[in-house]
Structures are given as C-alpha cells and as structure tokens.
C-alpha cells in the first residue's frame, strides 16, 4: 500500500520536494492570542519564543497573522519580525493589515520572507501586481477566504470573512497568479475552526487551477486531515494552528505519520 503511494508521487514527478507543515500564530498587539501550550516556554504569549520552538521542532515555515485592530499598534509586528529574524532561520510569512507597498517593504526589510494579502488584494488588485514587480512573485502570497455557495462553487470573502465579494474563488485564484502572486493561501471558511478536516474538493480545485504552490488551511483536527489535504487535495503545504498550539500533535509525530503514509516530508 505504502509502496504504491510512493510510486504515485514519483509519477507526479514532484522530485524530492517535501510537502510543508506550517504553524500559524495569531498575533494581537505583539502577543500570541490565547498563547501556546508547549512545555518549557518561559512566555507562552511571546511570538519570538514560540517561533523558535517551532523551528527547533521541525516546522518548515511559519506564519504570523497580525489581527491587531489599530494601525498605530502595528509597529509591534515589525519589532517582532526583526527579533524573529535574529534567531529563527526558516521562512517567515506575515499577513494582516498590509495595505500598501511601503507596508510590504517594511516587513521584508525587518526580516520577513513573504507577505500575505487578502482584503487589500481584492480591493486593489494592482497592489499584487506592483508588489510582485517590486519584490518578486516569490514573496507575494494572496490569501483567499472561501465559502461554499453550491456544489463545486465557492465565493471569496474579505474582512476576516465578514464581507462577501461576489468573486468566484477559482477565477480569483487564477487572476492572483496572473497578477504576480507566487503562492496561494487558501482557507475554507466552512471548515475553519471545526477540526473536521480540510475542504478537499476546494483545495484540489484551486491547486489544479493554478501553476503556483497552494497552502491549504482551515479544518485541521486529525493527522489524517493533513494527509488528505496534501494527497487528495493536492496541496503543497498545510497550515494549522490549534492542533499544534495546544499540543494535540507535535510537528515530529505529524511528519512521522505523513511519511508513513507516503507523503514526502522533511524529517
């Protein structure tokens, strides 16, 4: 069984590229929301300490999602990114509240490797194009919040899932790539927070529609969910928060499980 799965991957010709496991930290006013339940953390709300712990545990990349409400307090994120870059040597993506080119330039200079945009990409698609031209497609991620509207149909939402845009997810994802996004971070709003598994149909539909890597997000509750998103869902990476933060699964056991089930991972 396992051998057959390995053969399938070779057939797809992914070379030796590993599927990525990406923990996501929600950061508000410079602190990780709800904290993280790891052993040996001095400060369970300090993003830098948590990031270092995840990097040491074998996470492939990290995402900071800034959910700070006020623009003035966003300065805190730049300081956190700068501190993180001093001690964490895996790729770091920052999302949340990015509205204009100088926001991106500030984050990249502070030490972020990629930025992720959602609402601002929908409202001002030329931001994606300009940012891609200026900084390179590889560091411009478009985040898409998707809600199912009919079988095989999903609608793009903005403002943290509060505003329907009328945009079709598949078409928007393709347009993002044409504009210059180097990666898509795809969240199923229907699945997010349910721990009942990713929206596999959505993930596969977007992954097949675009030429850039897709990160699947929303719904991780069991290790088999991650496997399904990477295998059937054809995602290149999976993003998860609570299953890692509250110690349900470690990065090591996650990767061990995935490898045993024929998914190429970095161990």
């Amino acid at each position: 069984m396992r051998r057959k799965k390995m053969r399938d991957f070779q057939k797809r010709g992914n070379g030796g590229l590993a599927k990525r496991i990406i923990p996501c930290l929600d950061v508000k006013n410079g602190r990780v929301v709800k904290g993280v339940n790891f052993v040996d953390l001095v400060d369970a709300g300090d993003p830098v300490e948590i990031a270092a712990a995840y990097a040491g545990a074998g996470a492939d990349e990290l995402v900071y999602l800034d959910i700070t409400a006020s623009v003035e307090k966003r300065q805190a994120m730049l300081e956190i990114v700068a501190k993180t870059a001093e001690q964490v040597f895996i790729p770091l993506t920052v999302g949340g509240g990015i509205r204009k080119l100088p926001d991106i330039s500030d984050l990249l200079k502070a030490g972020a490797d990629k930025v992720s945009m959602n609402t601002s990409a929908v409202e001002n698609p030329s931001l994606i194009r300009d940012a891609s031209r200026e900084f390179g497609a590889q560091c411009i991620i478009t985040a898409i919040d998707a809600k199912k509207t009919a079988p095989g149909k999903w609608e793009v939402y903005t403002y943290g899932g509060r505003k329907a845009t009328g945009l079709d997810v598949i078409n928007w994802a393709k347009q993002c790539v044409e504009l210059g996004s180097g990666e898509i971070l795809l969240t199923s709003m229907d699945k997010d927070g349910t721990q009942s598994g990713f929206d596999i149909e959505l993930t596969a539909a977007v992954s097949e529609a675009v030429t850039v890597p897709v990160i699947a997000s929303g719904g991780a509750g069991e290790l088999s969910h991650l496997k399904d998103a990477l295998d059937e869902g054809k995602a290149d990476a999976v993003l998860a928060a609570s299953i890692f933060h509250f110690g349900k699964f470690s990065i090591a056991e996650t990767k061990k499980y995935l490898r045993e089930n024929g998914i190429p991972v970095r161990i």
Partner: protein
Amino acid sequence: MKPSIAVIDYGLGNVRSVSKALALAGGDARVSSEIKQIENADGIVLPGVGAFGKGMDNLEKAGLIPIIRSRIEAGKPFLGICLGLQMLFSVSEEHGSSRGMDIIKGEVKLFKNDLKIPHMGWNRVKFKNRQEGGGGIFEGISDGSYFYFVHSYYAAPEEGSLVSSTTDYGGEFTSSIVKENIWAMQFHPEKSGEDGLRIMKNFIRTCGEKK
C-alpha cells in the same frame, strides 16, 4: 578577531536574515553597499531572490559589479545565494535574455516541466565531488539533506566539474557550484535551519583561514 563579512545590499532579498545567520555562525557580518567596506572585508556574500534583470540592474546602478569581480579575482572567499548564484552566470533566459556577470560560463534557464513554479520549499541536496576529510563548505552535512529553495530559474554551468550538488525537481538541476574561492548555491542557507547555519560556519572558517 572575527572574520569580517560584507553582505552586499542591492535592494533585493532578505539581507537581514543572511547577516543575522552569518553573525550567529561567528562572523562579523555587515550589510553594505559601500565599495570601501566590501573591499576591506575578509569575505563577500551576494544574497538575493527575485528577478535576474532587476538584480543586475540594481548591481550596475550601485556600481558594485567591478568590486565583486575584483575581490573574486583577488581570491577572497565569495558566497552567492540564489540570485547571487545566478548572476555569476553569463546569461539568463528571463524576459527573453538578460546578461549576467559572466564570471561562470553558462546559462540560467526556466524550469520546463509540469510542476508548480516557483520551486518553493525544502528539497534534497545531493553532493558531488565533495572534498573528503573536511575543509569544504558542505563539511558536516549529510548527503541528501533538505534545504530551502525558492526560485523559478536554475543555473546550468558549461563546465560540469563545477557542479557541487544537484537536486531533483522534475529532473536533476545544479543546486550549487564550487570554483576555487567561489561557493554559490541555489538554496537559501539562511532559511535552512541548522544545516544552513553549518554552511555559514564553514564559510566563515574559510574566510578566517584566508585572511
């Protein structure tokens, strides 16, 4: 005294991470676009990620190409990362054709397979012609170790003997080259955890020896 390392800043890529990784690995790393500072450094790092043409334009506008060339010719240890590897080559097929520094003969080509572009993430590096018994930039790193890549183009040197590692992405491509005092890699040691830091340490040790 710690070896001084000039990390060349030409407005592309995460120079801060590169310099912090070098500092952690024991170097006196300075991000710089000043000729004098680059000239006096014990080693030079050319980082970068993104578009080849823009990278060359920025280097040219900042007047940095002659100093890079002359320090390499003077035998100073040089580490090229990602775009810093690609720009050493003669030409890139990005946007038709863009000229590189032509320090290494060869071409930079777009991946032509049905896989996702950019090639983004951790992939295995298989070493070739590795120096036995130490002294090399990859000393202490197991064959087949994972490193972080993010690129859509790869460099193909004319001289196969310069290839120090290959990686499989829909076929084997050159993931690093070594030529005398030039070490250059397509992957990002500054983003590749412990093994990446080991490369930085090995580079700094070489800079110290050649001081």
